[in-house]
């Protein structure tokens, strides 16, 4: 079974260490705007949700690429952009329903999470264990969490009447 990034938003404190670690891998600098993992801050709900590519089976980005610049790494299962082949058309960024493949204005190429070759920097950097790199048969951590947070929020603001 392949390892995947399991994200547990309840443990996230919003410290951005994952973004710092990821951007350092990408650029050699600390530059969160180039991070491939993004922490979404929901201030009113006091919730913080790191979010990145979960290497979905459908591989929308790979299927949309007109020049076959995206392939699957056989060791990690990660979908990988080949800079040599990518022409920077951006079709993959439109095809991805999760918004986790980006266009880099500095290199004019697409870029996305490649699991750091099997040792993801974000998971190592997380101080609270909110990001784990583990064997799992499902990478869908988001749906259940969003539903739970939303119902708690509605309950808090109007006793659930709007639900």
């Amino acid at each position: 079974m392949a390892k995947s990034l399991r994200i547990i938003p309840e443990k996230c404190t919003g410290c951005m260490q994952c973004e710092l670690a990821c951007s350092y891998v990408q650029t050699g600098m600390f530059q969160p705007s180039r991070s491939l993992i993004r922490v979404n801050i929901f201030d009113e709900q006091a919730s913080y949700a790191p979010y990145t590519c979960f290497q979905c089976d459908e591989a929308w980005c790979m299927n949309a690429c007109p020049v076959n610049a995206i392939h699957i790494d056989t060791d990690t299962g990660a979908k990988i952009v080949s800079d040599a082949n990518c022409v920077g058309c951006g079709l993959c960024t439109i095809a991805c329903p999760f918004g986790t493949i980006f266009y880099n204005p500095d290199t004019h190429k697409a870029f996305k999470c490649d699991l750091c070759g099997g040792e993801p920097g974000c998971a190592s950097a997380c101080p609270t264990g909110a990001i784990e790199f583990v064997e799992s048969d499902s990478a869908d951590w988001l749906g259940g969490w969003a539903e739970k947070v939303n119902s708690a929020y509605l309950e808090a603001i109007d006793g659930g009447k709007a639900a």
Partner: protein
Amino acid sequence: MNTGGWTGVVLRIDLTTGRIVKEPLNMEWAKTYVGGRGLAAKYLYEEMDPAADPLGPANKLIFATGPMTGTNASTSSRFTVVTKGALTGAITTSNSGGTWGPELKFAGYDLLIFEGKAPRPSFIWIYNDEVEIRDAGHLWGKTVWETDDEIREEVGVHDSVVSCIGPAGENLVRFACIVNDRHRAAGRSGVGAVMGSKNLKAVAVRGTGGVSIANSAAFMNAMWVMKKKIAEHPICGQGLAAYGTAVLVNVINESGALPTNNHLLSQLEDADNISGETLAATRLVSNKACFGCTMACGRVSHLPGEAQDKFMVTTRPHNWRIAVEGPEYENAWAMGADCGINDLDALIKANALCNELGMDPISFGATLAAAMELYEKSVIGDAQTGMPFKFGSGDALVAMAEATAYRDGFGHELAEGSKRMTAKFGHPEFFMGVRGQEFPAYDARAIQGMGLGYATSNRGACHLKSYTVAPEILGIPTKMDPAVTEGKAEITKIFQDATSTVDSTGLCIFLTFGVGLEEMQPQLAAVTGVNYTVNSLLQAGERIWNLERMWNQKAGFTGKDDTLPKRLLEEPIPEGPTKGQVNRLHEMLPEYYKLRGWTPDGVPTNERLAALGL
């Protein structure tokens, strides 16, 4: 270009003329004063007349990051606001976290210097190289959270970060603060009033650049060593995340050092009601980190419906029904114990109002405490206050939090701070503070070293400039007896110098519960490429301390201001475990001056200044 932690650029904005200049950072000063607090103090010293009116256009307002700000070192969020304090008339160095400081670095600037006064309410929008002065007429009068929302919508950049003042800053409340990221504040000495006096409502920033470091391999190694130490430390790794700073309420109360009822007492009845443990058990939603912080001491708390409606105010914080940040230890003390209040819900509500209206809860709470003493001793009555000001009144606390920010009714008197207010009503001896700034949450009669630290603090009474509570109460790094004065001059000097350096790096002073300059030095040397040693960093701190002292001398302060209120020097604590104690400042101050290389009148000698390169 790799500039070693610093971006190498200063952004200077003359609000009077609208002139915006990007100038190279003085790298000699950067290396000598590190960054943040120290570097900004150097700019202020070189550029500004310290005798200027703090609320006039000649005052300058500097936002300063450090070389570590924005890196992945733990607690890399910090920036410092340096200016002449509206509350004190002294140089002030107010530190804040959140994400605003790193964002300024990512936009490409180490320092942001404001001069003059805008002809009309304005805000600044910084998007990397693009810097604009925009009209803020439609934002004037808006609360912090409204301003944050409206500016981010107006500039149309979701990830922009806002630092702004609320109504308190606009109304020149002497202890107004500058709030960034909605809940984080450069809190003390009235930096928000200075910003308000310049007609400057907000500074919004978005930066997409990065922070480079000089020696990556050495930095990454040192960074991991420190993070591991922090994670394994009982306070940094566990206590602060679980209970926040308010874990101190019970500790300090049991030590007989929690000033209560404007320092008339040193213990609060049922203090556990407002402790970090009670907050965690009853009102805490989550903890929260500033940018880069692996400790995450921030509190996000929530009030159930009945508790929200218990206290009447007309301002309806528009989203705080869900979650608000705080209260922290200092707020819980100032608005709690110092006012004799042990109602956690009143504290949460008043704290939310301070956040949203942009006001320092320490000085607000302590000023209200002095007003309560005036009321209890019949100096003022309902005719002035409009409501009973009994010690313990949560109703007065919440109502005045709002009234003070708007200068409504008696709030107009409170807005002047405790020193001016008590003098106006003929009882200056009820002012509990130094250099016009109210004390924080430790009774200097019970903790001798804190008395010396308060008396000599350049920005007025402050717990963050020499936190000798660590050795005297908590036993960090080693236990000292809080009741004795021996050794306190020496530890105070070392703590003041080391803290000056930490404040200048861009890291958080809370790190020093678990690590010291020994752990920071390898990171700082690797980030900057400067051959810093622990000794040279400690000397940088001493240089900064002396520079601030010299600035204050030019502003009119002398050694005579290095003192404490009569209550702490002559009126013994009446009951509890510290009964009978006073602060024996006279046993410490001469030794402190000597260790500093100052004259018996507290003036830095030319020899000492020369040795420090001043």
